[in-house]
């Protein structure tokens, strides 16, 4: 393993506070979060909500980008399937993120850091519960050290140059 080793739970700083990005669809989850607010449902202040018109607007590339920039967790949330303001948007969200969630896990990202959830405009308590649980989970596993671009793991081009040179030589010898 390289020197920018991935921190394990044991190394988590005592006072680590994760930062979690929530992509919330305007019609359901954003309204659900508003409802949590008007109902004064308390949850830890570690989430930041980014409003999108529909969960289907969330490009998986946005999610990866957030991890690159060092976010500790990402939640993509929208209307329940069948309730989409745009009729079918969240069905696409579901397809895309069923795949991307698996791919992120495959890449070694802890699945606890990345969730997709359906939270309706009436589900203030669910919003509270989902983000609270997620914050606690991410707090337990510590800061994200993976995919981050500020930890410059640079490419060692020497090997590549050497191998290309070797190939060139073989060609030269044969011609």
């Amino acid at each position, binding site marked *: 393993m390289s020197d920018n080793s991935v921190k394990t739970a044991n190394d988590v700083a005592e006072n680590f506070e994760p930062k979690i990005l929530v992509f919330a669809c305007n019609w359901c989850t954003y309204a659900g979060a508003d409802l949590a607010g008007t109902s004064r449902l308390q949850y830890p202040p570690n989430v930041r909500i980014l409003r999108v018109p529909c969960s289907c607007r969330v490009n998986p590339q946005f999610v990866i980008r957030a991890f690159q920039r060092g976010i500790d967790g990402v939640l993509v949330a929208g209307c329940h399937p*069948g309730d989409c303001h745009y009729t079918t948007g969240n069905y696409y969200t579901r397809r895309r993120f069923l795949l991307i969630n698996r791919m992120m896990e495959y890449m070694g990202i802890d699945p606890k850091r990345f969730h997709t959830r359906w939270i309706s405009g009436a589900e203030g308590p669910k919003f509270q519960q989902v983000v609270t649980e997620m914050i606690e989970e991410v707090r337990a596993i510590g800061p994200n050290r993976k995919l981050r671009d500020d930890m410059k793991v640079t490419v060692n081009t020497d090997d590549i140059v050497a191998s290309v040179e070797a190939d060139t030589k073989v060609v030269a010898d044969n011609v």
Partner: protein
Amino acid sequence: MSNAFVYNFDQVQNEMRAMAKELLESGEATMVIGWEKGALPYQSTPVMIRSAEDVDKLIWDAYCQQNLSTYLIDYIYTDEKVAIFAKGCDTRAYNRLIQDNRIKAEKCIVIGVPCPGMKNAREAARLPENAEVPMANACKECRYPNPVVFDKRVGTDVTAWCTERDFSDVEAIEAMPADDKYAFWQSQYTKCIRCYACRNICPACNCTSCIFDQSASGWCSKDINASENQFYGVTRAFHVAGRCIECGQCEMVCPSEVPIMLMNKKFIKDIDSLFGAHEAGLDTNTPAPLSHFSVSDPEEFM
């Protein structure tokens, strides 16, 4: 797996030359794209032939792995009528390009060539001269060695040697602990030099303007580091998800030997198990899995 050893390359090669000659002489095609002998025995490279006199340049051997269909894009706005030789995977690539509206069937002549499976050129380079060269990785799992679409054809159909994809490599990674997975992929993507050879050769990566060439878009930086490289890797895999025709060219041309098909196969495996079996490029009507949905898709996000 023994197709390659009973398969008569020379006979098919003769047919190919005859076919090319006929097409060029009759004027049915203004150009024929095939393969020619490369600098090394295991490097057969594409060749564009415009004259019937040159047809003897054409060869057909176990190293004609390179997919020729993508070249058709270059001629879409010319008056040329281009004929290409196409193995099973090349015809799936052709369907991919037709479905993506990147080429027009009426401007192309597809000459189907049943393929016995190509050899692994990379291994060939490493092995001693007379050693037995194994089949290319993608070819090992090929289920469609015969052209799935063609205007003309040479040779006779071969029997597919594989009926099911082998996902054991994907499963091996899935079974790793998260940190090991990450370490594995980081070690792979630190090798990537972002030469974009994988993208350029890919029949599914056929955008006129790739987001990775749009530096002003804010999507990506030109920086070559593990983070950016992995962003590139995942994004490209996502872009071809459900559209990849599994020719394995990306992996073949990668100078850094990044196991790119391991990414593509992960998506293929998940698409099959989540949304039902899908084979890209078998026809031009079946919609790509990410361009439609089913209300009964698996629900995991409640």
